């Protein structure tokens, strides 16, 4: 059939050509014949002699054309057939060549002779069996696989057994290669004395990292740790593997911009310990190293545990195969996977374009290393400028401002908004806060848009759009976080275009067996709609929830997370829900007394644990440098109160301003989602005049 078609295709143009040729010839002949009678009517019908000569020529021509065409067609078809045969045989030989190579690479043992039972070219590597009395001779079948004891690798074992009688040759090849991959891992873990084939150099027992993790957590931050803890609590003997590209074990971030700066200990950059609200010291690491299991031991340890692989980045995710690939090429399969990759601090284009002299004097603050380097810099330079007026920028500004008096450091903060936390607090409160930050020793430049940055005469020069020029030694850029969605393409995961981050449902699930938590998760909040939250408590709450859902619960995001910030000893607040300054707000403030400050709150109430009942205790209060009590001011003093953020007359966010230990009430109000006629009545629930 094909041959006919192929042949016809070759012949067609030729046939067409020859037929047109024929037709043309015929036409010409006819025309000539016709014309001749016209021109020379005296001649009778066909001039036999002339016509005969022409006829023969015509016949010869056509005959030759047909013959030529036929010969050409025959040769082409024959050639095609030959080429086709060659192709098929080449492909066949290629598959045969690839299989043995694959096996060689994966198992790294000498390929033994292949067999008739399987394909002729398959090599069947002898397996290193740990019990010394097991024969290690290369065998024909895949029998050795079924002999290997599989104490700690239960999942490959059943598959291996079933492979003893391979039916489909191709399938068995691929499965064998996979299993053989696992088995050497097991062997080398187990046996000290490994029986080797002669051709392979005897390898010492090298601890091999796990190839399979029932629970795989990508990212080693707060959300990941919270999930690990949740999984371990719910699934007894769970084996959890955390992979992080940082060198540090999981740690909490808030103290890096708050408590650690207030510590008296000169060695704080080494110990990374801080004082909590209750005076007790603790490390920023969630748990000391002894809490974790060595990754190499993870599959063996009796009661399971949490293992952390540091310094490894996951670069590729294969969702269908339930596996990930690391930067070093190794692959790890999983049953359930959590992506908690957090994000990377954003940089400003003007800084990136400004050249190396500027970029090496710029800090993007997020990790422990950034804290260490900034702390060192703050002791050596004369001037630091913080670009950004949000949480991180303002906290760092206050922390550095505190130090400024001691070390003679000039601290400046600049941002495009009208006041600190301009995107969070209503304008009047933002202005008030800015004044407080100025009192901490910070020079605040509001409505400052950076036009360009240069390095001139040993100083970093920042030119603003309105003409102001700032000369400084070092820049800290706190202009937002870019969620890390590197695995979206390879994993086929959806990325949200509005908020960034991986798009997940209300149960934090992206796809089957894949959950996302923390800064990188754009999730659906049943009460407040789709959002992405970059706060510590949210990482804890979402991590815990993801861990619960990975172990079989199907709970949506329900427990509303909160956040808090302290800006010096006078200003501290806790907040919950959607706190966006573009929403209409209603603020209910008490006429303040000197007793109402975070400092006073913690000193007074031994029981009232600020942010302890809400989230983990992080807030550490030190004795303030200001010893004078706050004098009553003539203008409005927003000492303490409650601010409600409304959307369609429903309270979607609440800030507790210098009012502590009331978060459960705030949480309840948001959960209810009711339209309240008089928010003053709702404010009464908070008892703001009490401590």
């Amino acid at each position, binding site marked *: 059939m094909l041959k006919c078609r192929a042949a016809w295709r070759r012949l067609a143009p030729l046939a067409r050509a020859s037929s047109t040729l024929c037709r043309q010839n015929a036409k010409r002949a006819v025309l000539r014949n016709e014309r001749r009678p016209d021109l020379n009517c005296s001649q009778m019908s066909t001039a036999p002699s002339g016509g005969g000569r022409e006829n023969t020529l015509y016949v010869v021509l056509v005959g030759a054309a047909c013959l030529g065409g036929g010969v050409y067609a025959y040769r082409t078809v024959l050639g095609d057939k030959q080429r086709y045969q060659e192709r098929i045989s080449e492909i066949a030989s290629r598959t045969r060549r690839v299989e043995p190579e694959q096996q060689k690479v994966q198992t790294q043992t000498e390929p033994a002779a292949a067999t008739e039972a399987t394909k002729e070219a398959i090599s069947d590597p002898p397996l290193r069996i740990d019990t010394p009395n097991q024969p290690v001779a290369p065998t024909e079948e895949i029998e050795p696989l079924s002999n290997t004891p599989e104490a700690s690798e239960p999942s490959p074992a059943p598959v291996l057994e079933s492979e003893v009688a391979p039916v489909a040759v191709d399938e068995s090849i691929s499965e064998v290669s996979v299993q053989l991959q696992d088995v050497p891992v097991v062997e080398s873990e187990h046996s000290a004395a490994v029986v080797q084939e002669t051709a392979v150099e005897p390898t010492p027992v090298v601890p091999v990292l796990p190839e399979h993790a029932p629970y795989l957590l990508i990212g080693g931050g707060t959300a990941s*740790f*919270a999930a*690990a*803890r*949740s999984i*371990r*609590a*719910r699934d*007894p003997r769970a084996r959890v593997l955390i992979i992080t590209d940082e060198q540090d074990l999981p740690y*909490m971030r808030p103290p890096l911009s708050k408590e650690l700066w207030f510590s008296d200990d000169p060695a704080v950059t080494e110990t990374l310990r801080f004082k909590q609200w209750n005076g*007790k010291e603790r490390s920023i690491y*969630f*748990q*000391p190293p*002894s*809490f974790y*299991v060595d990754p190499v031991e993870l599959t063996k340890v009796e*009661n399971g*545990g*949490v293992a952390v692989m540091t310094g490894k980045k996951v670069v590729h995710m294969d969702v269908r195969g339930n596996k990930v690939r690391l930067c070093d090429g190794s692959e790890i399969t999983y049953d359930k996977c959590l992506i908690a990759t957090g994000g990377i601090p954003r940089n400003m284009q003007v800084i990136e374009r400004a050249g190396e002299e500027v970029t090496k004097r710029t800090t993007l603050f997020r990790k422990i290393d950034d804290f260490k380097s900034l702390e060192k810099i703050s002791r050596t330079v004369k001037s630091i400028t913080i670009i950004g007026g949000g949480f991180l920028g303002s906290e760092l500004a206050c922390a550095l401002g505190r130090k400024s008096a001691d070390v003679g450091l000039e601290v400046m903060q600049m941002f495009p908004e009208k006041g600190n936390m301009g995107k969070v607090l*209503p*304008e*009047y409160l933002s202005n008030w806060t800015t004044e407080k930050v100025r009192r901490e020793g910070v020079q605040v430049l509001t409505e400052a848009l950076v036009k360009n940055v240069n390095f001139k005469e040993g100083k970093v020069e920042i030119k603003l759009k309105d003409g102001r020029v700032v000369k400084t030694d070092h820049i800290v850029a706190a202009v937002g976080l870019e969620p890390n969605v590197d695995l979206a393409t390879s994993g086929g995961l959806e990325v949200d275009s509005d908020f960034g981050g991986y798009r997940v449902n209300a149960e934090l699930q992206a796809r089957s067996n894949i959950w996302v938590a923390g800064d990188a998760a754009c999730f659906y909040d049943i009460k407040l709609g789709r959002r992405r939250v970059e706060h510590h*408590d949210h990482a*804890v709450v979402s991590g*815990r929830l993801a861990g*619960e859902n990975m172990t079989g619960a199907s*709970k949506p995001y*329900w*427990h509303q997370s909160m956040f808090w910030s302290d800006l010096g000893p006078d200003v501290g607040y806790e907040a919950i829900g959607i706190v966006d300054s573009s*929403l*209409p*707000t*209603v*603020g*209910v*403030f*008490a006429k303040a007394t000197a007793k109402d400050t975070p400092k006073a709150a913690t000193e007074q109430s031994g029981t009232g*644990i600020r942010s*302890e*009942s*809400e*989230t*983990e*205790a992080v807030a550490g209060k030190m004795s303030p440098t200001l010893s004078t009590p706050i004098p009553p001011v003539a203008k*409005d003093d927003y000492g303490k109160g409650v601010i409600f953020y409304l959307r369609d007359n429903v309270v979607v966010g609440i800030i507790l301003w210098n009012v502590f230990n009331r978060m*459960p009430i705030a949480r*309840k*109000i948001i*959960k*209810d989602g009711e339209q*309240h006629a008089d928010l*003053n*009545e*709702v*404010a*009464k*629930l908070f008892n*703001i*005049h009490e401590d």
Partner: protein
Amino acid sequence: MSYCRQEGKDRIIFVTKEDHEAPSNAELVADDPDDPYEDHGLILPNGDINWNCPCLGGMASGPCGQQFKEAFSCFHYSKEEVKGADCVENFRGMQECMQKYPELYPQEEEAESPPTDSDPAPPSTSEDQLPPDSPSAS
């Protein structure tokens, strides 16, 4: 005397103590105790122990988590007159395990102080304190 001010879309109310003396007439929706979505305290509505309760800190998830769970479960379901009197073996096993990790379970603390108040604590996400601190639910 309280007064009110409007700044654009933001409303500001200053109130004195007297203004807030009268009890609030704001209505709150009654909580459903059987709500499956809610976080529960230490004890779940069906009587089981909530191992994921933040109040337990890292006790149930650490290296000695299994022993802790066994000991505490035994204590919880114990019907002896002196509650937990039949669980000495479990507690001993837990202590032995904890002694292997002095960094995680400092020995000067009571190694196995299970929370005595079993009423559901308010849902809290207090996370990750060093284990000895945690059992004392706030």
